[in-house]
């Protein structure tokens, strides 16, 4: 189908962008790989699209004092090709391989995926597993929100009117920390049936995607001492909604399969 009519502005400065996004019916456009399909299917009908891809300073990947700051406009492909990300945020580098297909990865952005908060998306689960911080910009300056508070519900985040996602800050991988990203799909690049972002550092963190309205931190499994206990604990941690093809029971079973694979990978000696 064809998108409904809307106006389009591409601001060149943050001040201009803030003024535009506060107009009634305005919506932020970045890579557009989720927004444009929803326009084409008329699931969304904004009056004004504010294309933020011309804004300066939102496309950098920077390592500074143990924190990797990735600009909101960094595309999946840029992230995939980044040596800093591969070395210091390997979970993200593994996750990006599962995102859609090359032609979509060339346009879709980190900030767009985080702002949309699709429960089947890869990045939000990584943010939660790594305890990342979302950097928001608005007229009144910068606001930092931890991933745990950022994802509030189905496609619902802590972004306030007038704010844009500017960057995400990830703690750089420390010595003796390891992470692994696993996902099950019907075909490469499809939406996940279920996926797992696992991080082992001072404590263990297992975070599932496709398992609820937001990324789901499996608290009991994460605190378990053995694999058997962790798998058993998933029964209490997860109540995944069925999708068109997979029942809740199937998904929970597959969550256990991924847990086992992750556990075995992470507990192997270096």
């Amino acid at each position, binding site marked *: *189908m*064809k*998108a*409904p*009519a*809307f*106006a*389009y502005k*591409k601001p060149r400065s943050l001040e201009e962008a803030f003024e535009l996004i506060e107009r009634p019916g305005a919506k932020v456009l970045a890579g*557009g*790989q989720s927004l*444009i*399909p929803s*326009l*084409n*299917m008329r699931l969304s009908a904004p009056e004004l*699209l504010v*294309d933020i*891809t011309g804004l300066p300073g939102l496309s950098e990947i920077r390592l500074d004092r143990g924190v990797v700051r990735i600009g909101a406009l960094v595309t999946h*492909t840029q992230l995939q090709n980044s040596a800093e990300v591969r070395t210091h945020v390997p979970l993200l580098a593994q996750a990006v391989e599962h995102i*859609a*297909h*090359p*032609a*979509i990865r*060339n*346009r879709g952005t980190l900030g767009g995926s985080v702002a949309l908060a699709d429960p089947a998306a890869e990045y939000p689960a990584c943010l939660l597993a790594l305890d990342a911080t979302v950097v928001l910009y608005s007229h009144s300056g910068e606001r930092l929100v931890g991933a745990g508070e950022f994802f509030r519900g189905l496609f619902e985040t802590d972004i306030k009117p007038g704010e844009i996602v500017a960057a995400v800050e990830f703690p750089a991988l420390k010595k003796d920390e390891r992470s692994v990203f696993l996902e099950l799909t019907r*075909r*490469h*690049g499809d939406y996940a049936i279920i996926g797992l972002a696992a991080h082992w550092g001072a404590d263990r963190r297992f975070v599932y995607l496709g398992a609820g309205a937001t990324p789901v931190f499996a608290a009991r499994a994460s605190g378990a001492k053995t694999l058997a206990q962790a798998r058993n604990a998933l029964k209490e941690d997860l109540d995944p909604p069925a999708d068109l093809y997979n029942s809740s029971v199937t998904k929970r079973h597959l969550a256990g399969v991924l847990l086992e694979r992750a556990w075995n990978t992470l507990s192997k000696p270096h």
Partner: protein
Amino acid sequence: MEHAVETTLTVNGKQVRRRIEPRMHLVDFLREELGLTGSHIGCEHGVCGACTVRVNGQIVRGCLMLAVQADGCTVETIEGLSDSKELAALQKAFHEKNALQCGFCTPGMLMAAQDLVSHGKKVSRDEIRAHISGNYCRCTGYQAIVDAIEEVIQTEAVRGQG
């Protein structure tokens, strides 16, 4: 209401300047305004890959980019890559291996395949499959398409060594 935006872009080497309604996506613009009907429209929501074109050297979904977003960009379509002979080896291999039947997916498939070929790396069949996983073909079952792409990549690799 009139929202048209003055847009300048380069399409297959020619500069084009038009006033474009923001709601028009890039493939509709190429097909309807410029008559470049080689890029096909299948699903129009980013699933099928039939509309794959190149923008600033990278393949993108033409239905998931607004034409006004291409302001200042260099756009290349199947027509441009075909005329420049960049696709000659792939086109010949697709023909010889029977890698198409109805041909609807072929322009997008060739654009995605050429993206892989142009990386100049030797890749496995699994990697070929992963690279074209965003392009649907409902006729061939992909086997012959993978054969054709594999042949071109192997030939290029041999040529690269020689």
